[in-house]
């Protein structure tokens, strides 16, 4: 298996090198045959990398401990499910998956452009192959997933493989979420290569065409969805595995994963400026290059042995390689931007500061401010230690207080900006649309003030979260109502036609729910540490909690100690619910790994982890958490991801432009003069410039 894998990696090296050269030369000299052959190389490359991954998988499943990777990350006792997961449980193996996913994206691009050939295509293809080449070189040299165990190799031909492997890191074989969190995150990270490639290609071609932004917006959206899901799953993993009652620790690696998400969110918004109005060309290229560079930077920080955290893969010799690649990305990316500056100049002009264009500017500066704060906070200890040899920590309290103002401002923007039209808003109309959301937000704030809230930041979080949910929800409802009137096929057809907009609004609602959930859980969580003897109970957050005693179960790879708790609402007659927080003893771990038990509720979760056992389990120490809003957080996050997916899903092109040709039943309108009080038969100067351009500006 090892031989097959190594062979495959060499073949992948050759294929990506060929693709890089053929696409670049073909594009440069205008030979479509070469470009086509480069395009077709994507498929064999993908097949090769599938084979390589399959080889590693087989080695893992067959307990082939002659391979160092298998010996270090799997064992005979490891359940098959976790053996499969071991493929990405450590640096070397995960690089194989990384390569596979990148090849998958390459093949997807090759398939998407099998007929259509934008001028940027050869160069984009070439950039994709270049990135692939880098990662294939990594697994051929600095990191060698198929290296054999040294002892076995030197005891030549004896065939004395190790009897057993070390098994995966205990923390990583403790929960099935490990099956989905890394792959989604990889899909999210690696996907940034596609918009990056097209951005770079647009710079190389240099005709100032806006088409690349339209071409890559959907790709970026898909990548954004994957990254959103990956981040959420990571938070869920942290919540369900680590036993600390929280979901985001502002761990450096979490931070660097959030950076490309923030930047790509900014791009998804500002790409609309370019698509519709030809504005912000330079800015968009910068954002795309920045997102890819930040992704590379994050990989360097995580895999380059710079940081230590649960995510950090120890002892990886690939650090310098990443650094060189990052330097190259920055140099080429921003070098090209500087070189093509003249063609990127668009003379953007807006008609009003009360317009969607202006709101997008606000969105971008705030998202980038957040990204800048996180980036600086993350690298700060590294820089300080390198320059002054003084060690510092920049942790959760810092990030929370530094980012709160930025995120609150963002919420304010998300709760008001979608009410603004393109070009210029009519002030009184905008205010009228703001009435319900503002009133709802004020009511929520007044209500929670009366209810005894004593944290101003929480009050703002709830109020602005409500503003976001109601404002965007109102826009969707208005769309449905108006759509039903104006479209003979009804509201569903209207929704489908404006899918991008409604998906965006739904994602905003998700964000609002997420914000409310985060506010609730970070401000009003209760926790307590209890030591209980078996059969005794105590009360916590309105519950009676009774320790039922310890049970021990032997599993092939671990020993599981379950300290069962029965929980019942104080004074209630309901049957009690059983919570089973566990301690898992792995032979490879010096300390037990906990598994918390969570009672998920619609409004709050009851969360228990066992942190100590005394008298061989006759008494146990628990940490109990009462976490409000966590369910809302998952719901909001899921809504964001789903909305993103809905906007990404391909549609049939709608024929022609809507607008003037759309069937509009004017009569239904004229029957309701009350809605249009300000719009008399007289011309309104603030609307006038909008008319001609609204029609031409849309795709």
């Amino acid at each position, binding site marked *: 298996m090892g031989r097959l894998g190594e062979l495959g990696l060499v073949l992948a090296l050759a294929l990506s090198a060929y693709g890089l050269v053929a696409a670049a030369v073909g594009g440069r000299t205008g030979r479509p045959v070469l470009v086509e052959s480069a395009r077709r190389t994507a498929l064999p490359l993908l097949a090769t990398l599938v084979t390589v991954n399959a080889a590693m998988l087989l080695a893992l499943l067959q307990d082939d401990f002659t391979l160092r990777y298998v010996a270090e990350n799997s064992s005979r006792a490891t359940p098959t499910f976790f053996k499969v997961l071991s493929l990405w449980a450590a640096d070397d193996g995960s690089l194989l998956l990384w390569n596979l996913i990148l090849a998958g994206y390459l093949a997807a691009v090759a398939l998407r452009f099998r007929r259509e050939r934008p001028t940027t295509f050869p160069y984009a293809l070439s950039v994709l192959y270049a990135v692939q080449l880098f990662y294939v070189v990594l697994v051929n040299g600095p990191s060698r997933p198929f290296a054999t165990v040294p002892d076995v190799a030197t005891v030549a031909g004896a065939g004395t493989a190790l009897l057993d492997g070390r098994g995966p890191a205990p923390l990583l074989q403790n929960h099935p979420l490990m099956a989905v969190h890394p792959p989604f995150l990889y899909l999210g990270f690696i996907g940034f290569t596609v918009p990056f490639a097209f951005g770079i290609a647009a710079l190389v071609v240099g005709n100032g065409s806006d088409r690349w932004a339209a071409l890559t917006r959907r790709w970026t959206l898909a990548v954004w969805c994957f990254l959103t899901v990956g981040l959420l799953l990571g938070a869920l993993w942290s919540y369900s595995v680590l036993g600390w009652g929280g979901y985001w620790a502002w761990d450096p690696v979490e931070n660097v994963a959030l950076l490309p998400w923030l930047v790509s969110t900014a791009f998804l918004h500002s790409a609309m400026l370019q698509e519709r109005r030809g504005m912000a060309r330079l800015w968009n290229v910068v954002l795309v290059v920045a997102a890819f560079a930040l992704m590379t930077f994050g990989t360097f920080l995580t895999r380059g042995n710079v940081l230590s955290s649960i995510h950090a893969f120890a002892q990886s010799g690939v650090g310098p390689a990443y650094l060189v690649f990052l330097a190259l990305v920055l140099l080429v990316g921003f070098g090209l931007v500087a070189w093509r500056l003249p063609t990127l100049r668009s003379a953007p002009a807006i008609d009003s500061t009360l317009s969607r264009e202006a709101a997008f500017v606000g969105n971008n500066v705030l998202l980038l401010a957040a990204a800048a704060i996180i980036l600086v906070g993350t690298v*700060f200890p590294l820089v300080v230690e390198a320059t002054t040899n003084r060690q510092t*920590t920049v942790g959760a309290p810092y990030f929370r207080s530094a*980012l709160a103002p930025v995120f609150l401002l963002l919420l304010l923007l998300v709760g008001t900006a979608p009410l603004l039209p393109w070009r210029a808003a009519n002030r009184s109309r905008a205010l009228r649309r703001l009435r319900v959301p503002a009133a709802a937000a004020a009511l929520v704030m007044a209500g929670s003030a009366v209810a005894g809230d004593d944290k101003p930041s929480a009050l703002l979080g709830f109020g602005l979260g409500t503003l976001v949910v109601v404002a965007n929800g109102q826009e969707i409802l208005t769309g449905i109502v108006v759509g039903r009137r104006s479209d003979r096929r009804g509201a569903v057809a209207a929704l489908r036609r404006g899918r991008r907009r409604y998906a965006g609004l739904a994602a905003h609602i998700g964000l609002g729910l997420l914000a409310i959930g985060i506010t609730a859980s970070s401000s009003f969580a209760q926790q307590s540490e209890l030591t209980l003897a078996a059969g005794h109970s105590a009360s916590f957050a309105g519950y009676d909690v009774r320790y039922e005693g310890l049970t021990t179960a032997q599993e092939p790879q671990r020993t599981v100690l379950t300290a069962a708790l029965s929980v019942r609402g104080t004074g209630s007659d309901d049957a009690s619910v059983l919570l089973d927080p566990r301690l898992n003893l792995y032979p490879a771990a010096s300390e037990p790994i906990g598994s918390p038990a969570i009672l998920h509720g619609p409004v709050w979760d009851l969360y228990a982890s066992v942190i100590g056992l005394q008298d061989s389990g006759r008494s146990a120490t628990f940490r109990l958490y009462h976490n409000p809003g966590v369910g809302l957080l998952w719901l909001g996050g899921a809504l964001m991801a789903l909305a993103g997916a809905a906007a990404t899903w391909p549609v049939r092109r709608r024929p022609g432009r809507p607008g003037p040709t759309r069937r509009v039943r004017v009569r239904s309108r004229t029957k309701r003069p009350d809605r249009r009080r300000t719009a008399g038969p007289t011309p309104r100067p603030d609307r006038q410039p909008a008319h001609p351009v609204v029609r031409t500006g849309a795709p």
Partner: protein
Amino acid sequence: MTSSPAPARPERRARQGTRSGAHPGPRPRLLGPGALVALAIVVALLSLAAVAVRGANKPLSRAEQAQQIAAELRCPVCQDLSAADSPAPLARQMRQQISEGLAAGDSPAAIEDRFVAAYGETVLLRPPSSGPGRLAYAVPLLALVGAVAAGAATLRVWRRRSTQPVPERAPLAAGDRSRVEAALDRWSEEE
């Protein structure tokens, strides 16, 4: 049938000026659309002020105080969690020491200093507010101010560019205009 080419502004002013009903336009309203929004903002700010005052005056229980101190300290054996959050035995011990310190009447600062003496400056989850640490505190402020300034400057430049005069157009029939307005309204609501 053409509408009178009267410019909008004088007419609007007239509408606001005469509430007597002598004007043939739509019925005047007592409150503009901004009134409710303004009211909502006032209510929101008042609640915020009330909550801020209440929060500032609320005495903290000893457990809450201990929690606050522990949340600012790193659990030295785990990379990313605070002593308040971590389930590790050392973090448990730290929480105990904090509670004991508070019970003995020590100030939070004194307790923190003891941890710094024992584990070094890295035990603090916030960078120190002296030396290079000050930079860490300047960054969020700079980022936010810079972002707002950059946004405002961008908007000003973009706004200035669009001062081309609106081309003159032939007056429209009243029916046409309202029809166009209605269609545009719907269009802009859907996009």
